[in-house]
């Protein structure tokens, strides 16, 4: 196990800059997730850590050793690929032991290691099969087994679950998390699935356009997004962005909200809105902060109840998503399924702004950070 330091890494192809100075450092045993839309550079960064691609500038350190110019095989890392990349001509056993064989581990030790990994991943009964005879989930396990067998310092996972069906994906996600808890390995994991990122990571690096937008724990990123992009990318359904005018009431900046009536929403950090009075900003409010009126919240400082018109409802079982419109923006609210909300009717909803965030409308910068 080892720590990983990515120090101002840049990558250029001709004139296009794919990575624009990445700085990330993770501790031994930490689970880092790189998340972002396609083309954000996360896979390039992953390949650079693996040594499969050269970096143009900057340094990469594994276990405090500079490996920027070290060849992949000498970096002591293992990688699980999206397509699994199992060797089609070899059995599961040969697939798992290939890396050990290449490192000249004696046959007897290899067998012991294969057994250990197979038991850990519950694939002992598959050892004689070829990859073509395995299901998607089994291939996924073998791919992980191949990575685990070498006991490398650092594990890289490149979208390992994206080829699995939804149910299996959730199962394997839990499995990976358990495995990480059990083995305490250092992992860098690339995904574009923000739920995977939230559930697995110790820390998440949200990337866009070759830059890290925010690096933090899942909860930090969820509650305290650095900018509009991070706020919109993390969370499902996504955060609501409501254009709202900043008005002043009794010397305190408030946010104007127009539905069938107009109300002023209080904001936890009014001082950050001082300079924006009279301007329109974007109010970010997660769907679960807009609910049916809840008696126990009544009277709390940042809670406002107002009328909204229901456009569509989407029952999800545990909750019902209510789609409505405020300040001419479509917003999602999460309500109790028992709460009567017929499409077209006007109902009371409770806006809890205690965790609200505000962004500049043009630049997308966080205003209250």
């Amino acid at each position, binding site marked *: 196990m080892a720590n990983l330091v990515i120090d101002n890494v840049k990558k250029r192809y001709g004139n296009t800059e794919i990575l624009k100075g990445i700085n990330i450092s993770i501790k031994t045993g930490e689970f880092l997730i790189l998340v972002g839309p396609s083309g954000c550079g996360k896979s390039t960064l992953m*390949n650079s850590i*693996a040594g*499969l691609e050269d970096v143009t500038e900057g340094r990469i350190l594994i276990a405090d050793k500079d490996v920027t110019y070290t060849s*992949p*095989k000498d970096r002591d*890392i*293992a*990688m699980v*690929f*999206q*397509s699994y*990349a199992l*060797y*089609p*001509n*070899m059995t599961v056993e040969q697939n798992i032991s*290939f*890396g050990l064989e*290449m*490192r000249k581990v004696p046959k007897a030790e290899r067998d012991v290691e294969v057994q250990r990994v197979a038991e850990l991943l519950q694939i002992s009964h598959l050892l004689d099969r070829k990859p073509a005879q395995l299901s998607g989930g089994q291939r996924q396990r073998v791919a992980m087994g*191949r990575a685990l067998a*070498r006991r490398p310092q650092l594990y890289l996972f490149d979208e390992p679950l994206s080829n699995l069906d939804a149910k299996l994906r959730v199962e394997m996600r839990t499995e990976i998390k358990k495995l990480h808890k059990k083995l305490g390995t250092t992992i860098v994991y690339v995904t574009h699935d923000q739920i995977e990122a939230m559930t697995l990571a110790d820390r998440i690096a949200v990337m866009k356009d070759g830059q890290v937008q925010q690096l933090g724990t899942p909860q930090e990123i969820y509650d305290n997004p650095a900018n509009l992009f991070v706020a919109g990318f993390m969370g499902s359904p996504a955060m609501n962005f409501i254009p709202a005018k900043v008005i002043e009431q009794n010397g305190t900046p408030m946010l104007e909200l127009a539905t069938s009536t107009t109300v002023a929403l209080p904001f936890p950090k009014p001082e950050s809105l001082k300079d924006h009075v009279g301007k329109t900003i974007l109010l970010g409010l997660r769907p679960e902060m807009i609910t049916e009126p809840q008696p126990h919240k009544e009277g709390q400082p940042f809670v406002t109840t107002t009328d909204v018109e229901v456009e569509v409802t989407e029952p999800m079982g545990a909750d019902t998503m209510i789609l409505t419109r405020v300040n001419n923006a479509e917003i999602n609210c999460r309500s109790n399924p028992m709460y009567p909300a017929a499409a077209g009717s006007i109902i009371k909803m409770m806006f809890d702004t205690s965790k609200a965030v505000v962004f500049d409308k043009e630049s997308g910068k966080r205003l209250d950070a």
Partner: protein
Amino acid sequence: MSNNAIGRKTSGVDKALRVALYTVLLVAAAFYLIPFIVMLITSLKDVEEIRTGNLLSLPAALNFDSWAKAWSSACTGSSCGGISPYFMNSFQIVLPAVAISTLVGAINGYVISLWKFRGSDLFFAAMLVGCFIPFQVILLPMAQTLGWLGIANTASGLVFVHVVYGVAFTTLFFRNFYQSIPSELVKAARLDGAGFFTIFYRIILPVSTPIIVVTVIWQFTQIWNDFLFGVAFSGFDTQPVTVALNNLVNTSFGGKEYNVDMAAAIIAALPTLAVYVFAGKYFVRGLTAGAVKG
């Protein structure tokens, strides 16, 4: 399947069309078979029978004398040892040329598809041009090159020519096949600690059987059937069988021995025929494998 058969009614028109289709196919098949049948029949007749009978009349008795003569005692130019020595010459040229060009093509394809380097696409495009160069164009420069290399008029010289000319095709075949192999396979092997040749030998070659079969058949047929390079670059005792066949047919003392000519021609064609019969189904399968997978 049987359910379908019961459920479907065949109308009279369908039947008529089917009969017409088979008729056309049979006629086409016969059309292509007739030359070979004529060759076979003629080779089994004696000279007298050929002169008196017609082209398609069957031989009175099976007579393999002309085959024996073609193999071991017919005259090709000034020597009269049949075509057997040249048959062996052909093998001496074809086997190494096929092996080397296939191997080089495999490595080229492996590099171009899975170890892309700056300009590898350009390199491949340049290589492709080689597929479109007519044989005749390279005759003189090649003769000069062979002279410089000191392998003019030798079997090695012909092997060299065929390898150089064949590599463009074999590279194309292997490159297209390897395009369908995910590059992650190579990445995984690199992280596992395998090097360039280990990956090629342990991971890539074992999955290449279909394309190896295609390439071997293609190269074997091309090189075995080659006449132009054979006649231009071979020495007196390194002539391939195609050249010998030409000499045999053009050498006549007295009457023309059509039966011997035909027997020699069939013998010369046998190896490619055998290769196709034994590996033909892999050939078709291999050619289409990549196309379907896309």
